[in-house]
């Protein structure tokens, strides 16, 4: 099971929300970050002493760690970090009014055909999700099976033992600057525990947790899939999340026990003022399987590399990711697989699309430790450029200490060409329709893995993005 030391030894790296209304008074910390702010957050949440200490230690680590300079341009970020509120009680964040939501966001909502009530939730001005009924019947089912699906705060409160055993065991605060920051100020996120042998057919969807803290600026999610259990967790949605905040730094830790199987699906579409720096990692034990399905759209800069640490024999990790970089956006994404046991296997398939002045970078690591005999890994990254101004780069890091390992890497860059467009247009499609279809074809190997409603929305979103791409 999780093994702090092991994780530290393997340490390598680097890197929305929801609302409820009630009548409690507004609570938020002062702008900027200090030890006092950390104290205030912990006190407000009525946390046990150990968590306060954990936060304070993490805060010190955060101060000491330098800003990463190897990925997206974060030079403006220091300013942002001085000004933001590190904690706003979720129910108090909802001060946006519908009138303040930018027109382009509203237009996109309309085009996606999202009902108005739901639009308001997405835009941070609504309160309820209609799926409360669905949630309650599922909740009953989960309770009967011993499945815990709670907010991270309730996880800490109601399940202190399991929580403490696993919390920060996969991603210690020292992992990277933003993991340290998140550890100091985390708030919101999910806590999931699936007991041994339980197979969940219905995906755990974050939005089912109505009226609970869901995604925060510093969301923290901890998921434990115990021996032989199986589950699928879905987070996010393809509709743009409108937020007045400009920084999101989550930590998502997952433990996949022996023979367990887990898939984490997330699609996020941030408004383009957002820095999105997320650390997400799974520790995969003997014959366990972890699958990341990760979609990144929007934001100003995203740095996100879902990773699988394969620490048990025959563990398998798979990372499928799609990134879309529109004008002025930089998606620095990819994946990491670390093979630390024999006969472990992994695959990364990454597809990026860049349009206008957008830039996407694939950054991937495949590391095979000595003694991980017969480890196998395959990486495939494909970039599609919509026009000449778009840019893409590939940074594959491959570190292999084991002779018997078998590692493959393949990268392609393609551009939507005149011949291809002409072919589609000669069948009656406008240039925009043609582009959208080509892009949809490009991401189809990943899109077909998505839950249907997500795939449909993603396709629709690509159509919207391609409108006005012709000039």
């Amino acid at each position, binding site marked *: 099971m999780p093994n702090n030391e092991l994780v530290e030894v393997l340490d390598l790296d680097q890197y929305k929300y929801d609302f409820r209304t009630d009548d409690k008074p507004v609570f938020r910390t002062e702008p900027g970050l200090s030890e006092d702010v950390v104290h205030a957050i912990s006190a407000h949440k009525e946390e046990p002493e150990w968590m306060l200490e954990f936060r304070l230690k993490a805060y010190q680590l955060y101060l000491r760690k330098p800003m990463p300079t190897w990925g997206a341009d974060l030079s403006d970020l220091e300013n942002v970090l001085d000004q933001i509120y590190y904690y706003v009680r979720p129910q108090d964040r909802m001060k946006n009014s519908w009138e303040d939501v930018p027109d382009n966001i509203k237009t996109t909502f309309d085009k996606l055909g999202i009902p108005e009530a739901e639009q308001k939730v997405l835009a941070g001005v609504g309160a309820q999700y209609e799926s409360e009924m669905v949630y309650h019947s599922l909740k009953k089912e989960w309770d009967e099976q011993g499945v815990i699906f709670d907010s991270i705060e309730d996880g800490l409160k109601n399940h202190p033992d399991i929580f403490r055993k696993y919390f920060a065991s996969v991603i210690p605060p020292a992992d990277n600057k933003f993991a340290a920051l998140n550890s100091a100020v985390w708030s919101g996120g999910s806590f999931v525990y699936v007991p041994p042998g339980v197979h969940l057919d219905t995906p755990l969807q974050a939005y089912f947790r109505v009226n609970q803290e869901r995604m925060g600026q510093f969301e923290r999610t901890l998921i434990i899939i115990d021996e032989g259990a199986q589950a699928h967790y879905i987070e996010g949605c393809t509709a743009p999340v409108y937020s007045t905040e400009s920084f999101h730094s989550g930590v998502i830790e997952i433990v996949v026990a022996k023979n367990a199987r887990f898939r984490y699906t997330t699609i996020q579409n941030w408004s383009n003022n957002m820095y999105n720096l997320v650390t997400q990692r799974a520790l995969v034990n003997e014959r366990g399987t972890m699958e990341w399905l990760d979609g990144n759209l929007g934001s100003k800069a995203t740095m996100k590399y879902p990773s699988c640490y394969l620490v048990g024999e025959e563990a398998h990790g798979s990372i499928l990711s799609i990134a879309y970089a529109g004008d002025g956006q930089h998606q620095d994404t990819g994946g990491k697989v670390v093979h630390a046991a024999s006969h472990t296997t992994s695959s990364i398939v990454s597809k990026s699309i860049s349009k206008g002045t957008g830039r996407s970078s694939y950054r991937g690591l495949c590391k095979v430790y000595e003694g991980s005999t017969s480890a196998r890994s395959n990486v495939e990254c494909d970039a599609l450029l919509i026009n000449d101004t778009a840019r893409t780069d590939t940074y594959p890091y491959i570190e292999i200490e084991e002779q018997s390992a078998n590692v493959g890497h393949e990268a392609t860059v393609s551009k939507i060409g005149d011949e291809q467009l*002409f*072919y*589609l*247009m*000669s069948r*009656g499609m406008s240039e925009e329709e043609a582009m959208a279809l080509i892009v949809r074809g490009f*991401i189809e190997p990943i899109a077909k893995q998505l839950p249907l409603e997500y795939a449909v929305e993603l396709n629709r979103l690509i159509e919207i993005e391609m409108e006005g791409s012709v000039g």
Partner: protein
Amino acid sequence: MSDDAILTIEALKADVAAEELGILKALDLQVCKGEVHAIMGPNGSGKSTLAKVLMGHPGYRPTSGRALFDGSDLLAMEPHDRARAGMFLAFQYPVEVPGVSIANFLRTSMQSRLKEGDDLDLFDFQDLLLDRMKLLEMEPSFAERSVNDGFSGGEKKRNEILQMAVLKPKLVLMDETDSGLDIDALKVVASGVNTLRQEDPDMAIVLITHYQRILDYITPDVVHVMVDGRIVRSGGPEVALWLEEEGYASWREAEEQAAAI
């Protein structure tokens, strides 16, 4: 000019977009509804260029002359408007569209022809697609494959004809559809084309080919011989037979002599 004309080309000159090569040299052609015209000519004579200029390929530009399609100024239209108006080009070298199934590709093509706000009836579409595949002796699973992705030469050509059969154009430009097809596949394609002509007797065909062979199955009303960007001779099917025997060389010689005078 005939009232029945679907395509009228007058003194059309055309070039590649970026250079002055003078590929098409004052070309005239009139195709009436329901007619089959064969254009034959040696490699490099400008046959594909003509087809692409007519379809609006951005890599080529007409430099003078004009072309009317069903009464409209063809050269002023965008490629997709030409398609929607009823023109279809069966490509000599069809393009791959990875990840997009033939069914999806055709559905999107059909949808794009509808008025804004109208939705294609998916059941009707499915019926049509299956019916057309049967006509062309194709397995239904073929429609699930990504467009031209990893197709053999013959499969690509058959896919072009399938698209034509689904989209039901008024005028078809077939650019060397026969090359790459074995004789059995050629017969299937030809009989498919003939069935489409029966279904729509007004459908006209411009059949670009190298060989007489396909003309045994799709009988042309007029055969044109194209050399160096010009139509140098037009006539009945006998022209094709004659050409088969004599080859193109004598035409070139005749051309050169004429030019020298």
